[in-house]
């Protein structure tokens, strides 16, 4: 696994989420990418009950990724994170008294997975309670493990199919440009997804995109 960058793509002029995704797929296929299946990333929110009054409730996010189907990741925003077995979900149900599931806040991104040379590109529609909220694109460059080294290379590749809407350097990269990108447990990837999902949650519902 290599350096991964997750970004949100704005919708094309006057097009819906699905149409923009189709445009991106076509561009990727024109480049020569090969479709390799589907992917899903989802995130559930839990409120931590039992806090001292006056303190804001801490939110625990439990995320799953189809790249690592047997694990799940639990993290506080900006805080510590834990990689656990798939049975962690069952454990959270048992911990109902301490953590309450905010059912309406489940965000997920679902879509297809493409491979082009050493790049893995995942284009997904971000949905929250079955209403499409945006488009996420995850780009992974497998051979390199140092984010600072290959950011320019990834930007050049993104320009070829995303056009002018290239994101800036993700904050995760900025904190450790020379360090290794943590590959095996996808912590850095999931942190980026979490940031994207939080942004999407705060956004208004896009007009005319309810499914």
């Amino acid at each position, binding site marked *: *696994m290599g350096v991964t960058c997750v970004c949100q793509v704005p919708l094309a002029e006057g097009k819906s989420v699905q149409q923009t995704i189709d445009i991106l797929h076509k561009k990727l296929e024109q480049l*020569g990418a090969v479709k*390799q*299946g589907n*992917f899903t990333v989802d995130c559930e929110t839990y409120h931590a009950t039992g806090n001292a009054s006056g303190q804001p409730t801490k939110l625990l996010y439990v995320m799953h990724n*189809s*790249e*690592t*189907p*047997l*694990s799940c990741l639990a993290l506080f925003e900006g805080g510590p994170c834990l990689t656990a077995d798939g049975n962690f979900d069952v454990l959270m149900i048992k911990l109902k008294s301490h953590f309450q599931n905010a059912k309406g806040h489940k965000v997920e991104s679902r879509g297809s*997975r493409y*491979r*082009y*040379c*050493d*790049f*893995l590109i995942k284009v997904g529609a971000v949905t929250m309670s079955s209403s499409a909220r945006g488009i996420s694109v995850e780009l992974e460059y*497998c*051979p*390199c*493990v*140092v984010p600072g*080294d*290959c950011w*320019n*290379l990834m930007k*050049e*590749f993104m320009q*070829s199919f995303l056009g002018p809407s290239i994101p800036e350097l993700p904050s995760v990269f900025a904190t450790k440009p020379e360090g*290794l990108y943590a*590959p*095996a447990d996808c912590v850095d990837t999931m942190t980026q997804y979490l940031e994207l999902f939080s942004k999407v949650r705060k956004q208004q519902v896009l007009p005319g995109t309810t499914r």
Partner: protein
Amino acid sequence: MADAMNVGVNLEAFSQAISAIQALRSSVTRVFDSLKDGMKNKETLEGREKVFITEFQDNLQSVNRDLNELERLSTLVGRPSESHPLHNSGLLSLDPVQDKTPLYSQLLQAYKWSNKLQYHAGLASSLLNQQSLKRSANQMGASAKRRPKVQPSTLVLPPQYVDDVISRIGRMFPDMSIELFRPNGTSAVLLVTLGKVTKTIVVMRSLFIDRTIVRGFNENVYSEDGKVLLSRGNWNVYKYSATMCFYNPWFFSKVTDHATTALLHYQLPQMPDVVVRSFMTWLRSYIKLFQTPCQRCGKFLQEGLPPTWRDFRTLEAFHDTCRQ
């Protein structure tokens, strides 16, 4: 001599005659075409008839001209000379059963093919001799009697000396760490870790570099019993991932090909430690593998690959397709 001159004249007249025949054919075709097309559209009937008749006359005159030309050339062509007997293979051509035993045509093809092969082999050998690929100090083409029975002294070096040279080179480059193993006998196997970019395995035969394998930084280079893994077994498969992420092996095997080219390029049979040092200097230029754009086209990616070629003299980065 006279035969050769005869052949020369015949052939030229022959080719001219063939083009004269083609000209004649086209002018006859033109006659019939103009007849088929009929009269062109003009204002008056007389005008139309006049144009048609003039055209017809022109076409017939060109036919006449071409026919005269052809008759003139046919007198020049003459008889084919009988002075080139084909000896025994020519007798094969007299066999009328062509489809059952096409011996003569196959024989001709075989001769043509072997002539072409000889010609190409001559070209190839002259090209290959320009770049000598021999890595020993023996003279080329020495006869068996004069070939020295003793191995050149640079092949039999004490392992301690090899260790010293390698550790000296390792100290020269701070961002490159070299580990030395001796898994099979006295040949050293080096594991060169270059920054956080690649791990290269270099197999040596005394101080000569025999083979290199370039792998990614997070790939597994050790086999189960701790020995350095020379062959790539399964791809780097994460066993718990349902959708297996195939680490693209082609990128680093391209770099491996370049490294093999480099070790054939840097050759000095008498001074192998200089060779090893230049090879390591070349390898070290890969530390910015993902950060440098190609010097020629200025881009990072060409068909999905970053610039993997490093020039042997200037150490500049080029794409494999840009380096010519």
